[in-house]
């Protein structure tokens, strides 16, 4: 609990925000590039999911500042996110979507 009315925190600055944006654009470009490559669906799915997860983490961590904020925010958001992932995997497994 905050002991005073003022709290010092360190957030990223504009230079870091722009760097993150450049990384996000490059990752998106790689995703689209992989889509047009002739590779196996499994490899393509793996690469795209990995890049999507990376982009997700960058936006949540830096733009939404969860990396710098109070851990309780992280726990609350992660609880919903993990539950959502669990529901997705369970539903797709139930309909044999993971294996076909």
């Amino acid at each position: 609990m905050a002991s005073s009315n003022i709290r010092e925190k360190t957030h990223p600055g504009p230079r870091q925000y722009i760097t993150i944006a450049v990384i996000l654009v490059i990752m998106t470009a790689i995703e689209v590039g992989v889509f047009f490559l002739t590779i196996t669906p499994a490899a393509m799915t793996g690469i795209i999911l990995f890049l999507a997860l990376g982009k997700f983490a960058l936006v949540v961590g830096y733009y939404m500042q969860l990396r710098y904020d109070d851990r309780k925010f992280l726990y609350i958001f992660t609880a919903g996110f993990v539950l959502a992932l669990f529901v997705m995997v369970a539903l797709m497994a139930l309909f044999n979507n993971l294996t076909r």
Partner: protein
Amino acid sequence: MAHVEPIEEQTSTGLNNRKLLMWAFLGSDCMFFGALISTFMVYRGRSGTSILQFHEAHDAIKDAIGISVGTLSIILILLAVVAFAVNLIVMNRGVVKQIIPAVLTLFVIVVIFQSAWIAGHHPEFTAHECTEMGGIVLPDNESCELILAENVLDIPLTSISTFVLLMSSLSMVMALAALERNNLPGFRTWLTATCLLGVAFLGFQVFEFNAFLQEGLTPRENLFGSTFYVLTGFHGAHVTLGVLWLSSLVVASFKGKVTQKSALDVEIAGLYWHFVDIVWIVIFSVIYLIGAYGIG
């Protein structure tokens, strides 16, 4: 960068309640979009309507009773009307007592009639005709999928709209950074840019939906249409709400209601906007890239 964040009030968690509520909402929204995305993936490649199977059932009934299902349903409707009139006039039963059985009977008849209409009006394809028309015969060998995800999803166009939304996230954090430095003109410029980029993204979505409708893909066409429009439509609704929210902040800043002290208000709006962005990151990757790579 170090900055000073004023805490408005003491709470039992030590956290700002509004920010806490926003994070809780975003966590719950993860589950909402997770359900929609997984529903799309579950039905991926299963969009073919079993029209050939239905035609077989229709023909079997016709062979057995000698009349078509359509004619049968019209006879049933006439019989129901006669029975209703006999009950009412001859047996002198009250109208109220007849409502439930009458509604149930009519419901069954309408279902039969509608099914007969579908059977009579849906074109029947052979496997060869299905392939000739650019569709595929689904693994059950009795369904034809005419509108395929890989045929209608425009990856280059959606890549541009994805870029637009990513840039809107950048302008959003730049707006917040400007406000924290008490740079109000900078804040207004960046936030207006965010709104315009959001509107541009919605424009792309409207263009895409219109193109799909031209292709004949409506929400009622098949499972792909239903799940796709519901998912991307709800995301579009979130973007629209975000644009309205951010626009109201721009207007409020001109009225002097948004200052450095209200940076937390802007931060909370920004959390919502970035969430819309991360949902699109997942939709673009899973629905457009992975979804369009395979069938359906």
